[in-house]
């Protein structure tokens, strides 16, 4: 059986982590490559990089980061943020990323998913979704709405409908972020994750709300997620990835324990 994946997420701006990450001796590390190496050694199953750089110059720096990461860690990793065209995807994949993720751009231009899947295979294309809870309406029967531009702009698009449409277009995986749970450290949005995961045939990575190991257990069992994204709980060194995996393993969740 497949192991449930634990995936740390790193936000990068102009080649540096947006927040320094504390490591042994409380040294503040700003280099995404060094932090990726640390998480690889702790047993991360995959790593997500999110590029929040806006400028063209920043994009070139990100490609350099991707190349250095690919020479340093030997597990799959994905890159998202600002991917607008198949050429953007190609440059990231050629630099060594396994997967690219598209979010706002895919909502604006759904053909991007199909074009990416055609060019590189579905397994390379991750759909990022930022979702908020709403009162169900005929247009949004699932009670969850897609929001874009980093969670700032509501779209009126039903989240479940969009997930199914993206799968049909060729997305190979969904990274599902609850903007209601994001930053709370109170746990993932289990209902949302279970809803989407049980209605699509592609893996779902749960995102938003992780504060302790029990939250990962919940979302990987009741929440039916295939993988769990984590950020602050490891970035602030409250937990190591190995500790989280040890907890999950001890509670009967199949986790990769030998690395």
């Amino acid at each position, binding site marked *: *059986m*497949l192991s449930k994946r634990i995936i740390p997420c790193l936000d990068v701006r102009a080649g540096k982590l947006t927040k320094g990450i504390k490591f042994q001796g409380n040294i503040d590390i700003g280099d995404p490559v060094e932090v990726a190496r640390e998480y690889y050694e702790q047993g991360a199953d995959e790593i997500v990089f999110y590029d929040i750089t806006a400028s063209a110059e920043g994009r070139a720096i990100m490609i350099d980061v991707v190349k250095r990461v*690919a*020479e340093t860690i*030997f597990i799959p990793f994905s890159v998202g943020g600002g991917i607008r065209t198949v050429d953007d995807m190609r440059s990231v994949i050629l630099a*060594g990323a396994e997967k690219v993720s598209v979010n706002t751009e895919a909502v604006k231009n759904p053909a991007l998913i199909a074009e990416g899947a055609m060019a590189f*295979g579905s397994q390379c294309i991750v759909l990022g979704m930022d979702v908020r809870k709403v009162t169900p309406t005929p247009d949004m029967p699932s009670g969850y709405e897609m929001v874009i531009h980093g969670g700032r702009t509501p779209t009126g698009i039903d989240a479940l409908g969009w997930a199914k449409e993206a799968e049909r277009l060729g997305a190979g995986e969904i990274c599902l972020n609850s903007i209601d749970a994001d930053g709370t450290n109170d746990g993932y949005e289990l209902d949302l994750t279970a809803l989407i995961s049980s209605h699509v045939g592609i893996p779902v990575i749960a995102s938003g709300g992780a504060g302790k190991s029990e939250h990962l257990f919940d979302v990987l069992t009741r929440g039916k997620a295939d993988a769990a994204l984590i950020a602050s709980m490891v970035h602030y060194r409250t937990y190591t990835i190995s500790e989280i995996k040890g907890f999950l393993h001890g509670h009967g969740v199949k986790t*990769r*324990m*030998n690395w």
Partner: protein
Amino acid sequence: MKDRKRTGMIGIVDYRAGNLTSVARALAHLGEPCVITSDPRILDDAGRIIFPGVGAAGAAMANLRETGLDEHLRKWVRQGKPVLGICLGTQVIFDHSEEDDTDCLGIVPGKVRRFPPDLGSGGQRLKIPHMGWNRVALRKGHPVFAGIPEGAEFFFVHAYYPAPADETWAAGWTEYGIRFCSAVARGNLVAVQFHPEKSGRPGLAILANFCRWGGSDAQ
């Protein structure tokens, strides 16, 4: 089987089947010189061959026939050169693949089948492709799998799996709704369905073992 020195270049066969640079990067990390090429003369001189690839069997075989690399691959295996197949490279060494109903290289008798659509485990429906980390019960005593800890997991992305005609050629088994052959070893050929170049330390260990392997499946 002649024992080959580990010196010399490792040839990575480029047949326009996906991005092959991740294998090259893993070898660079191990300090092993390699070249990615479709030129059979360069590959003839290589001490050993890695045959990777992602994508569809039909397109891959069409390209191998068009470039004549199909004949060269059969020759290198026949000559006793150590050959390592990875993912799609592993699938096309068999006789036939259900993907695009493709006749393949026929180096190892057997077929490549698609996972059944109703694949399930414990009442839960399993997703296809099989994507992520899974265990491989590896054949003990094979030099390429030496030192790999029990229970080690490897990274997979595939919807089709190898079914060798003779199960004694299977060198690794994996469970995903069904039990399938995830590694094959026969003489100087080793072929794996997973991606050793993306499987962390155990995967790198397999690549390092392959780079030192003489090409005989006896220890």
